[in-house]
């Protein structure tokens, strides 16, 4: 009995050590923000178009009747990585025929319009989320952030940060392909 009690501290230390070792795994990001939105229907929202551009606004309904998986990209003109990501998204649309929807997050419409005029507009629809509420509905944790919504309007995948690195691009493509397969 006594032996067991005195051995307890060493045992607890070993167990804690195991957790620490696991926690040091370089692939683990301690600051990652979880979401409860995956594998659920898109949240209800209805965003108007960005004032001053032709592209129509975006609502939950638009995402339910696509008939195929689409990308929903949250972006803003003030977001520097978005600029780098923009080229990749444009290539997705122009070369691979991927359908791309945008949520313009907490951005002045004039700035967004200038930005799109400057870089080109690959988006099929863009909703202007001026006050950021729809961003919270989508549970975003920063800009840019990109979602894959399947043909039935279910959010199946989320990518946090700019899709620039080849691995990131491959990950998003894989998620799109997976979403295409009939369930």
């Amino acid at each position, binding site marked *: 009995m006594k032996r067991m009690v005195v051995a307890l501290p060493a045992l607890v230390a070993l167990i804690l050590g195991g957790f620490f070792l696991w926690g040091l795994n370089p692939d683990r990001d301690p600051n990652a923000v979880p*979401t*409860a939105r995956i594998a659920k229907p898109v*949240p209800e929202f209805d965003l108007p178009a960005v004032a001053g551009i032709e592209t129509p606004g975006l609502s939950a309904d638009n995402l339910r009747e696509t008939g195929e998986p689409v990308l929903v990209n949250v972006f803003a003109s003030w977001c520097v990585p978005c600029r780098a990501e923009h080229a990749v998204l444009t290539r997705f649309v122009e070369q691979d025929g991927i359908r791309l929807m945008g949520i313009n997050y907490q951005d002045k419409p004039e700035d967004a319009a200038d930005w799109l005029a400057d870089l080109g507009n690959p988006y099929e629809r863009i909703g202007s989320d001026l*006050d*950021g*509420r729809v961003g*919270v509905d989508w549970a975003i*944790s920063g800009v840019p952030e990109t979602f894959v919504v399947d043909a039935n309007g279910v959010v199946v995948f989320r990518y946090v940060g700019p899709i620039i690195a080849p691995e990131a691009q491959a990950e998003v493509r894989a998620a799109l392909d997976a979403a295409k397969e009939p369930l």
Partner: protein
Amino acid sequence: MKRWILVLFITFAASLAWGLEPDEILSDRGLEQRARDLSKQLRCVVCLNQDIDSSNAGVARTMRILLRERLVAGDSDEEVRAFFVERYGDFVLFQPPLKGSTYLLWFGPFVFFGIGAGIVVVVFRRHRAKTVRMSAGSLSAEEEHEINAFLQSEEEHK
């Protein structure tokens, strides 16, 4: 990556200072008080370990405004919390709800205390048994020593 900064509160140095802005405050003092209390329990999801009440981040401000809207619309505190949990999961709550994966968190300290108290009681029982045995026979060398120690400590106490 290699940049090591020492000890305290630096990441959000650029956006230091405090969150809640005057234009967000509700005129109803009771509701506002509830809003403040709730916003201290909700985590600013983009910050590092900070509640939305004190955060300057845009998302935190949006969350504060949404929270107040829910309260004005008549939501209970529980409903407000559920509103955010629906989006970000339990992560958004600084006080994790009681459920399977958090039983240990909530009861752990009390279990620890219980085990400790159990050990203390066992120790006392043994001591009492020894004391009883001791008073039965005549004094051994060890007991003599005990008494001396006791007298000494008494002396010291004067």
